[in-house]
């Protein structure tokens, strides 16, 4: 057989392509269930860690069931629509026009404190970044934040997935009174009394800016939902006040 003949070259290439394609597809299909399980468990771990609960990958499903009380998806007017919050792919959603997007919300509880957990997704330097932000029921104070990335540089942009970057988010507020401020990642470090800023990463400015943009873009889409929750809360407070004063009144009259 002459290895320099055109026919040989063509058949060699054809056989190689078929072999490699078969090998890779078999590997991909047979490993997919294991990979999906890992991804799902990690997602649950991330959601839980915004509540300050750290669990192993094996326990994630069980603890998730206990702690995440409910989840639902909203449309851009803040109304609950049909859908499963856990399976919403924000990567796909972000490509749709805003009025067709859905916005997932998870409600969780720890130590009697209710938190609303909102998934985030945006752009880093080299690829997508994503995460979860948990808000207390005043709809403004951050109770936890988790970020992750696909391909940011280790030691630089990739630091967003580490605790030292995420912890300062806790206690910051996304509203100043009634004005929406979001949270900014500040280059060179945030001022100590800055309620809407956290320290950036040296050498990771573009990823840091990516996080700021992601938070601003995502949170602003939830504004109708926040308003609605706040007005509900005010009504409840007003109601309890009314009940209290009525009770006081009745007691007084009985006396």
């Amino acid at each position: 057989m002459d290895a320099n003949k055109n026919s040989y070259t063509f058949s060699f290439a054809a056989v190689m392509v078929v072999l490699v394609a078969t090998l890779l597809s078999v590997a991909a299909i047979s490993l997919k269930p294991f990979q999906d399980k890992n991804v799902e468990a990690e997602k649950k771990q991330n959601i839980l860690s915004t509540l300050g609960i750290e669990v192993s990958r094996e326990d994630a499903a069980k603890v998730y069931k206990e702690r995440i009380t409910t989840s639902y998806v909203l449309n851009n007017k803040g109304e609950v629509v049909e859908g499963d919050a856990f399976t919403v792919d924000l990567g796909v959603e972000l490509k749709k026009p805003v009025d067709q997007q859905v916005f997932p919300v998870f409600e969780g509880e720890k130590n009697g404190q209710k938190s609303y957990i909102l998934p985030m997704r945006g752009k880093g330097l080299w690829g997508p970044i994503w995460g979860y932000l948990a808000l207390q029921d005043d709809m403004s104070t951050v109770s936890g934040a988790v970020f992750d990335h696909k391909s940011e540089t280790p030691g630089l942009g990739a630091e967003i997935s580490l605790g030292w970057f995420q912890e300062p988010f806790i206690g910051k507020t996304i509203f100043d009174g009634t004005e929406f401020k979001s949270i900014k990642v500040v280059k060179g470090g945030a001022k100590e009394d800055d309620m809407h800023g956290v320290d950036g990463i040296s050498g990771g400015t573009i990823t840091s800016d990516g996080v700021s943009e992601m938070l601003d873009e995502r949170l602003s889409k939830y504004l109708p939902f926040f308003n609605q929750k706040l007005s509900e809360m005010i009504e409840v407070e007003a109601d309890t006040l009314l009940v209290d004063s009525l009770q006081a009144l009745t007691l007084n009259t009985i006396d």
Partner: protein
Amino acid sequence: MSEKKEPLFSKKNRKLLKDPLNDNNPVTTQVLGICSALAITVQLKPAIVMALSVLVVLSVANVVVSLMRNLIPSRIRIIVQLVVIATLVILVDQVLKAFVYDVSKELSVFVGLIITNCIIMGRLEAFALGNKPWKSFLDGLGNAFGYGWILIAVAFFRELLGAGTLFGYPVLEKLGLYEMGYENNGMMILPPMALVTVGIIIWIQRMKNRDLIES
């Protein structure tokens, strides 16, 4: 009459393993694989993960190409080598993703870098195409070790001086250097300092090994 068999670790074969560590180091002497040495040496952990994955991919690819060396049409040999490397890298990545998810998250960033790593193509082209599988395997191991130790050395200095940590453990803080007024050198974290660090290693190597100095 049968040909006398060469022992597995003959002097020649040992040389295949040892040479790339110093005299014929892929990074400092052949000046290959510099791009990844700059990109991923900010911390020790990814540098080690990268070194290990290159070790697996390079030695297996060398063996595979060496086994096929008499079949590969010379006109499309580069494409064949690329396909072999890419297939291996994808397989390694998929297996890691399924069974050691945490490691795969560290590694996934570097997959592209492994495929474009000039050392691998260089060794396939220069060695595996003309040598038997066992020799090619040793050559692959040797070069991967040679590449790996440079990577780890550079990462060691960059992480220690740039962030004051090793494997994320705050070494300098525990030594109390910050109280004595030491500050982290932020420049070590930036890519240019990787080049300077590699340069310093090359300098020291040539100072000790005069044979490497070009006239």
